């Protein structure tokens, strides 16, 4: 097969010729479209099943690592407060979320319950130019639930992440 050499977009003509020839061979002749299709469906199904198997095993092992024993009614209520105030829109929790404000997966250990409650009540600082956290007007009960949620979260076995207490 012979074709005209077009512009090379900065690649050397030799390297292009190499790609063209070799891929040309692979992508024509013996390797047919039907083979490519079969490998796609076979490969996808195989690896999806493997993923399901791993998921299944994870579900079996999780009770040992996910601290579900501490998932008290308070912690459950706390998670609901966490979600409905969109805390994750500024903070991360176990490293996921936003990166604008500190990690809170280990805040229970870093600060303790009293500090957390006082902090929430003192917001916003209104310090000029500083990042501001809203005042959520939570009741004392709601604050306790939130703290309970942090306590539960801090007990999850995260394979020693984060590297230190600062999160």
């Amino acid at each position, binding site marked *: 097969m012979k074709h005209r050499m*077009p512009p090379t*977009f900065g690649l050397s003509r030799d390297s292009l010729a190499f*790609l*063209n020839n070799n891929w040309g061979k692979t*992508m024509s002749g013996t*390797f*047919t*479209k039907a083979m*490519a*299709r079969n*490998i*796609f469906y076979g*490969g*996808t199904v195989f*690896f*999806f099943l*493997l*993923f399901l198997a*791993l998921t299944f*095993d*994870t579900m079996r092992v*999780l009770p040992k*690592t*996910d601290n579900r024993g501490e*998932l008290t009614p308070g*912690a459950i209520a706390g*998670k609901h407060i*966490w*979600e*409905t105030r*969109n*805390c*994750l*829109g*500024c903070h991360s*929790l176990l*490293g*996921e979320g*936003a*990166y*604008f*404000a*500190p*990690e809170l997966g280990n805040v229970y250990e870093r600060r303790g319950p009293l500090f957390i409650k006082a902090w929430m009540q003192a917001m*916003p600082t209104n310090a000029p*130019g500083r*990042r*501001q956290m*809203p005042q*959520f007007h939570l009741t004392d009960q709601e604050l306790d639930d939130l703290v309970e949620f942090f306590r*539960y979260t801090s007990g*999850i076995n*995260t*394979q020693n*992440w*984060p*590297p*230190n207490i*600062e*999160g």
Partner: protein
Amino acid sequence: MKYQSQAVAMPYFIAAIGLFVGQIIFGLIIGLQYVIGDFLFPEIPFNVARMVHTNLLIVWLLMGFMGAAYYLVPEEAETELHSPKLAIALFWIFLTAGALTILGYLFIDYNTLASMTGNDILATMGREFLEQPLITKIGIVIVALAFLYNISMTTLKGRKTVINIVLLLGLWGLAIFFLFAFYNPANLVLDKFYWWWVVHLWVEGVWELIMAALLAFVLIKVTGVDREVIEKWLYVIITLALVTGIIGTGHHYFWIGTPAYWQWWGSIFSALEPIPFFAMTVFAFNMVNRRKREHPNKVAVLWALGTGVMAFLGAGVWGFLHTLAPVNYFTHGSQITAAHGHMAFYGAYVMVVLCIISYAMPIMRGRAANDQRAQVLEMWSFWIMTIAMVFITLFLTAAGILQVWLQRVADTPMSFMMAQDQLTLFYWMRFWAGVAFFIGLITYVWSFFVKGESKPLIT
């Protein structure tokens, strides 16, 4: 345009671009809040603006995917769309629901919004990217199903090309995995585990099928290369994507309470995820170099090549950078993550949508390609946005390395907020790169209004 009904793509593309502009405006707002912490506080707190930024991104990409499908599926199937009326109705429903949701974020307190919209019946809100109220989520599912019905029926009655099949697989997968957005157990570990079935299995799974199909379609059109060759490539690419990407989900299961063996599965399989992105780049360049025709739409070719390269850089290189468990232990949830998220989303999905818009829009406006002047302007916007995104990524990466060092590696680690104070310079530079990005985007929009002689339609 070969089929009249392909024209329903037009409003989708226009709305997508409009929402893109909104996304970037809110990007600039949160970029500024990173350095001027009390900017717009308490009117628009960071978490609200961020939610608008990321949700607009998702909504406009979905708009773009749907528009692309309405354009592409009839042409590939060689038949009119099953129901153009349904497509137009769905457009208005989706746009209205999207707009109302964004207005809800901005003008109603999130907690109030949650209780107004049924979050107490089924709590799904307050999780990253899935912040939408329950009724919006249900609306998305209904629109998605009706949309899938429409394009599936079109495919069924017409020619079943590989491009159509792969695109449909991707879109069905998108809808199916979205269903996990409705699963929100109180157990945080389970919540996070299945949250990734939406987020990861989208961007590193089924969306790659959509991307590859769109790219293949545009490449066939602009290069005239034999369909047989392109389709074989398509299968190879999507095989690589799913074989690596499905188990690659494990790179999110290192530190969230899941068993330690995921550090092996996740590291190994996700380390291979750059391969399909690399293959897409080679594919795009290869096809363009073997082109059998000189298509007058040069800028569409530029987007096609650009998306290959930038997706490889953003997803492949920047993904690999932090995907091995021993590295991710330090970089997890830092500015490195944000750097990667930006370039990957831009390089893969923003650019591929802009690519199909660039190819299809002139045709829907009755010409094979835009006037030279409009194309040159669009090329300028390509370069400004792309280079700006490279700089956003580089500045965030620099900030991330410093952050990780100060806060997680140094002998006496700094607190989060103290470390942030040290990064101000990089955040300022990110902000200015963002302004440049915005200028590129305005240039892009402007290019649609440049009038001139139009090239005749060739078919």
